[in-house]
């Protein structure tokens, strides 16, 4: 129908006098993984609930594959697999029965389910737990089972609200591996988290939300490049740090130098080519460089840089 899986325009949600969303606009292309980043209470879950047809927007439109979520909720539900941040399970059901129930609820015939469910259990590494009562599963297993539940009707869009919250590091890694596999299957995924490093590896685009305002949205590399207009370089030398500091300050594109023992922290606004040229200059000036590296900017840095002051007004 359209190249975009999600189109949100002017989305506002008000609870009484509290404005949870303040006119959000965003577009998520099909097949991409969108990281929804923001602190607790920023409006991530509200946005996801509206996309999942669980909540009515106060203003604005939300379209999933061209379908308005308020006008065609039944059709939209066919296209989405929703995993809320907090969810319960039916404790008297076995793992396989649990998936049969949701499969049936999506109108999948029993015969098809008989073939599908073992595959899903294998995908989420729960094949050996098919006869276990859901209540007896660990938190990580329940999270994976819920993910399998999301996939039971083969949705085009996965809405995953904090899928790794409360998981131990091992379970988190397992979850990340499954999500990578889903990405390779071409699913469009919206994934929210306030634990940023877990998103960094898999997302194509990010949206940063704070106090109901979308303060940055777009390709993660572009946002990273914009922020990297000011890089921080760390140079370790065998000596002559004060001398090197003066030398660096005389160079164009260097905005500041701080000495930290044997290391120099350099504020630099050039790109890769200028960065290489600077190293060449230092070496030609006969300084003994032990290491020369750019400090890595991760998603956490992006988030901190963007949210610093932005969208802070209530």
């Amino acid at each position, binding site marked *: 129908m359209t190249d975009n899986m999600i189109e949100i325009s002017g989305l506002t949600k008000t609870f009484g006098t509290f404005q949870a969303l303040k006119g959000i606009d965003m577009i998520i292309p099909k097949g991409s993984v969108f990281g929804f980043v923001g602190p607790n209470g920023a409006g991530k879950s509200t946005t996801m609930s509206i996309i999942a047809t669980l909540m009515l927007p106060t203003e604005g439109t939300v379209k999933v594959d061209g379908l308005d979520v308020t006008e065609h*909720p039944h059709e939209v539900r066919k296209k989405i697999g*929703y995993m809320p941040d907090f969810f319960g*399970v039916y404790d*008297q059901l076995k793992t396989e029965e649990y998936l049969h129930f949701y499969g049936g*609820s999506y109108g999948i015939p029993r015969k098809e389910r008989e073939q599908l469910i073992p595959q899903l259990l294998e995908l989420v590494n729960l094949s050996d737990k098919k006869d276990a009562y859901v209540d007896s599963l660990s938190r990580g297993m329940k999270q994976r089972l819920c993910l399998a539940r999301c996939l039971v009707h083969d949705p085009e869009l996965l809405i995953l609200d904090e899928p790794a919250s409360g998981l131990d590091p091992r379970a988190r890694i397992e979850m990340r591996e499954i999500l990578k596999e889903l990405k390779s299957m071409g699913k469009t995924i919206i994934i929210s988290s306030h634990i940023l490093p877990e998103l960094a590896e898999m997302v194509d685009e990010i949206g940063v939300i704070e106090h109901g305002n979308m303060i940055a949205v777009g390709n993660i590399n572009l946002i990273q490049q914009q922020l990297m207009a000011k890089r921080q370089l760390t140079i370790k030398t065998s000596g002559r740090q004060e001398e090197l500091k003066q030398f660096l300050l005389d160079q164009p594109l260097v905005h500041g130098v701080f000495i930290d023992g044997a290391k120099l922290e350099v504020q630099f606004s050039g790109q890769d080519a200028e960065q290489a040229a600077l190293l060449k200059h230092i070496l030609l000036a006969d300084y003994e460089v032990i290491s020369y590296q750019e400090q890595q900017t991760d998603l956490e840095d992006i988030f901190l840089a963007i949210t610093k002051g932005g969208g802070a007004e209530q």
Partner: protein
Amino acid sequence: MSKLQPLQSVKQFFMNPVIDKEYRLRMRTSRSMWTLLAYLIAMGLFSGVIFSIVGIDMRNSIYSSGFTGIAFIVLSFAQLGLIAFMSPGLTAGVISSEREKQTLNLLLTTQQTSFTIIVSKLIASISFMLLIVFSTLPLYGIVFLYGGISPGQLLSVFAFFIFNMLVFGAFGVLFSTIFKRTMIAVIVTYGVVLFMFVGTGIIYLLFSFGYNSYGFSGNNPANDSWILHFLAINPGFALYSVLDGGDWYMSLARSSRASKTFFDHVPFWLEYVIFYTAILVLAIYGAIRNLRPVSRKKQGV
């Protein structure tokens, strides 16, 4: 083929995953077994007392159908009381407990319509009530030993029980969608059921007391027989009407009021059924509308 299609649709509905899941969850808990046991013990004890009274009389007259009739009536009232007591507990948590357990949102994002979810949950709860009530049939069987009760009477009483289960259950499901806390939904449902049993009776008594003692209307007494309609919507009185085949309604038909309504000419139990069928439909409709806020705006699915 086409004649079978509606039947297949009904069969398909009753085999839907929500009903299937509700049955599994309900029957896998020990609570269900204990509930059934407690109900049978209560009814058994009650029947024991009633039949022992009947038994005393039996020494004098073996075919004392009057006493067996009384035993049947008392047993039926006890059954109605227990149904009224149990139905809110079984139905008022069907949605709110899913909300509390955080499973509701998962269910609401499936393809199941609000109608299917609400009606399936109501049916599943009523089915359990039916199981309990039908398990008391052997107690009614004892009444047959004494004679004096026809199978038709028994069937009509059980049909009345089923109707009441649906009514009490519909209130329970409605309040379960309105209130987020199961406890509040249960309390409000009990309040409504209590009003049906006691409130309507009190209103009737207040009106009739005022009318009898102080010439409430200043009219001919027969003109105020409309007060009896308050009795008609009382489950206890309606049951009495079913059991007795009661002629009380004739007092309405006989009243000298110029403007008589349809309800002045029908038995009380029928007035009860018509009135509460309307309420039942409204309650289920309300529950369906409340379940998904999104569907309010457009499609109602």
